[in-house]
């Protein structure tokens, strides 16, 4: 059901994180200038908006035309004149700017025809990419603050909590704790003041889900938080935003100012008698600051370090007062749940994981970007239908889910349902929704080492299992990858990993062994090859790799020779080539490039 407003002509220019990085803002400016210049020739002048993320980040900058629903990708400044003369003035499609559907190979003009979008369902991202985040009227036009009005006019706090409980919503920040239950526990405590907090620390490397929501639709988070505050009777809230997210901070501050000016925040909101104020706090700059007790310490002005807590923060949280902490995406789900009912939300998703989840789909997959899918979708659908399959049609090897302390899931588990419980059962986790696809040219030991490197750097150092354990695990992985490991190292790894998981103080340490344990579980052979045969089957660990050219497969095309930076490859044209092993630096260029699979790892 579209309102009259949204039928107007609009040009939406993506200014999400991915598109900004490739010049989205410049495209927006140029379109504005050129459309203004063409002014008199345009029959119905379009509204031009910079919006949040459209999802297909890797193909930005993206420009979309409504109501025709034409989307262009990889738009250059040089394309603008043609876009004006063709699409703006004549509603004609510029073929070459259309998306190519990764599945069918066909050019598609509307998002709804694109396989990337077909299986998606947008709830948390309902407005992201559709509205100008800094235009409150855009938000209002798409049902914004209607849930809040409904709450004030029809619902008491208990009814709000009941609705959220009925929805089955679980926290999107990683642990999947039932949101309604969290609110109920906090509401039960007779101790005031209470606080609500939004966790926008998003410390996972490469993640941008929460950032995209704040930069693309900040009011949905604000609205969710006012509703949550009303439910638990809190009058003060904080949005803790990762320090590097300058644009998110700016956008949120501006959105708060707008909401205050229009009476959606502050004293006596919408004449309800309910007061609520919201502040932005900039993050402490470490991954562990996203952990709830560290985050609260950081808001209090102390070092952002986890505390031993056996009393839940719903009872004693920020400044030892009852506190509800939820993730950005969790908050953004609240308004639709209130407006459309918990039952509606509960019908979406899998048995114990309701609704949708936003993922950042990256790695060796054709369509990379931001996706929102119903819980319970299979990994296969996510990677092969939405993601369009593996880049260069290589072999799929594994998918890493859950951020740095998640796990790697192998090819024979592609039919696994993506939800909290199945991912955990597979020794991985949902985490905040990172999803990194890996192809055959990925060494799983090296992958584990990459994550352990990150986590070792991010360990706060307070508790001994995590501080000392991660350090030793990193050293052992380094040994394995460089060929200096000894028999028994894998068992030592498992032993340390098991203890760190069981004994660490906070969630960082408790989950840090996942990358190791899951790769050992599913790729034990690969570890054994490294340790016992001193060979890296994927050809990634340089000390353990030897590339050879199979003379029967090589047809002497010379592509490898031309691209070898070490000039280690020789051979006459049309005759089999050879690699001079003494010069080869194991960079792997040749094996990546050879189109005849003639190069292998010895």
């Amino acid at each position, binding site marked *: 059901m579209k309102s009259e407003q949204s039928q107007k002509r609009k040009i939406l220019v993506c200014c999400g994180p991915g598109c900004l990085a490739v010049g989205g803002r410049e495209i927006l400016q140029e379109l504005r200038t050129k459309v203004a210049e063409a002014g008199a020739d345009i029959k119905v002048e379009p509204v031009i908006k910079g919006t949040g993320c459209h999802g297909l980040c890797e193909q930005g900058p993206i420009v979309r035309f409504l109501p025709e629903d034409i989307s262009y990708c990889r738009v250059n400044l040089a394309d603008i004149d043609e876009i004006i003369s063709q699409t703006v003035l004549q509603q004609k499609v510029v073929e070459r700017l259309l998306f190519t559907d990764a599945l069918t190979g066909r050019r598609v003009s509307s998002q709804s025809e694109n396989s990337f979008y077909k299986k998606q369902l947008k709830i948390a991202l309902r407005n992201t990419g559709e509205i100008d985040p800094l235009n409150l009227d855009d938000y209002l036009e798409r049902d914004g603050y209607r849930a809040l009005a409904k709450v004030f006019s029809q619902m008491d706090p208990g009814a709000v909590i009941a609705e959220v409980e009925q929805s089955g919503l679980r926290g999107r920040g990683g642990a999947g704790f039932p949101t309604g239950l969290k609110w109920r526990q906090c509401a039960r405590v007779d101790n005031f003041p209470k606080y609500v907090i939004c966790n926008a620390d998003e410390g996972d490397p490469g993640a941008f889900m929460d950032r995209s929501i704040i930069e693309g639709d900040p009011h949905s988070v604000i609205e969710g938080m006012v509703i949550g505050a009303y439910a638990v009777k809190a009058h003060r809230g904080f949005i803790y935003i990762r320090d590097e997210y300058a644009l998110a901070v700016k956008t949120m501050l501006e959105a708060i100012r707008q909401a205050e000016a229009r009476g959606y925040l502050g004293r006596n909101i919408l004449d309800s008698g309910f007061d609520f104020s919201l502040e932005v706090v900039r993050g402490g700059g*470490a991954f562990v600051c996203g952990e709830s007790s560290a985050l609260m310490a950081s808001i209090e002005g102390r070092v952002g370090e986890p*505390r*031993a807590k*056996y*009393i839940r923060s719903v009872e004693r949280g920020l400044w030892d007062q009852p506190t509800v902490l939820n993730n950005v995406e969790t908050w953004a789900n609240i308004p639709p749940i209130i407006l459309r009912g918990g039952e509606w939300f509960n019908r979406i998703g899998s048995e114990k994981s309701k609704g949708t989840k936003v993922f950042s789909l990256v790695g060796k997959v054709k369509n990379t970007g931001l996706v929102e899918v119903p819980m319970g979708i299979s990994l296969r659908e996510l990677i092969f239908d939405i993601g369009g399959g593996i880049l260069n049609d290589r072999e799929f090897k594994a998918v890493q889910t859950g951020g740095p302390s998640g796990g790697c899931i192998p090819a024979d588990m592609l039919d696994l349902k993506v939800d909290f419980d199945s991912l955990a059962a597979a020794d991985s986790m949902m985490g905040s929704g990172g999803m990194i696809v890996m192809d055959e040219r990925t060494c799983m030991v090296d992958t584990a080492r990459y994550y352990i490197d990150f986590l*070792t*750097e*991010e*360990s*706060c*150092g*307070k*508790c*001994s*299992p995590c*501080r*000392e*354990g*991660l*350090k*030793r695990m990193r*050293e052992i992985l380094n040994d394995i990858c460089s060929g200096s490991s000894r028999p028994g190292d894998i068992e*030592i790894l498992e*032993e*340390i990993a*098991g*203890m760190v*998981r*069981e*004994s*660490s*103080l906070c969630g960082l340490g*408790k989950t840090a062994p996942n990358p190791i344990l899951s790769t050992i579980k599913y790729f034990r052979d690969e570890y054994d090859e490294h340790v016992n045969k001193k060979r890296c089957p994927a050809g990634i660990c340089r000390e353990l790799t030897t590339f050879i050219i199979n003379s029967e497969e090589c047809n002497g095309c010379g592509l490898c020779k031309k691209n070898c930076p070490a000039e280690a490859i020789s051979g006459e044209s049309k005759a089999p080539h050879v690699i001079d092993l003494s010069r080869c630096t194991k960079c792997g260029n040749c094996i990546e490039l050879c189109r005849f699979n003639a190069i292998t790892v010895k």
Partner: protein
Amino acid sequence: MSAIKLTIDGRPVEVEPGTTILEAARKLGIDIPTFCHDPELAPNGACRICVVEVERARALVASCCAPVAPDMVVHTESERVVKARKAILRLILANHPLDCITCEKTGQCKLQDYCYRYGISESDFEGEVKELPLDDTNPFYIRDMNKCILCGRCVGRCQEINGAGAIDFIGRGFSTIVGPAFGDPIEESSCVFCGMCVDVCPVGALIPKAGVGKGRPWEVEKVKTICPYCGTGCSIYLHVKDGRIIGASPDFEGPVNRGHLCSKGRFGWDFVHSEERLTRPLIKKDGVFVEASWDEALDLVAEKVRDLLNRYGPDSLMGLSSAKTSNEDNYLFQKLMRSLGTNNVDHCARL
């Protein structure tokens, strides 16, 4: 609120709500190892050596922080627990010097004790170890951060109890150390040398200088006494070997000080055996001090007092006694002064 009933190692126990598992176990006489736990500090939960298995809990639980719950079933030495403790000890040991033979803490080091208890003689986890310079520039104690296991008790004591805030955690992850800001030597920090940190350090990272090389803990006789420095009356133990004082430590049970001491009571004992200490009366004759007998000295004082009284009257006299003497001595001293006709009496602790 009513008492909470739970079971620890198969034995039932009843405790107040809010009691930690560790405290409940101690009530039963069960000894759970701890490094970072300090009864005077807020729970820290850093070392994790106190982990226990609680039935139906997913992970192991730090007993020093976790409160008891009704019908909880706790195992303090299960296979899982012992396995985790052993791994923790091996990890700590992998980053700890193994010079126990000459370490001053030998015999009263918790790391040693627990390694003994769990049969850990060396660590098989090899890798980088800390290499930090010693801080021994002050006269009182040596800081060897290579031995520090980062339990944080010193930091907690210095910040929460003394309030000096001289030391804190610096850095993060594996490179975390404890010390004054900017890596300054402790002497240049706000340290008041109360020694509280030294007394709680479970390992040999903080060592009083005075006793270095002077005796093993088991050779030392600890003599309980009252600190003679001032009138507060702190209980202390003097550490005595072969009739000589080689150090002191606070009495954690002492009703007056409960483990606290000032820098004098904690470190100021070198005067006892000092070469410069006066052991006999000296009388200045022709500009030089000459040893004299007590009778000679007292006769001289009496003569001078009498002379002053006669010439200028009793108000020309003042008696100054020492807080290091007993109450009884001081009582007699003021009586003496008053019998001489003056009320001018005072003692050094008021200065």
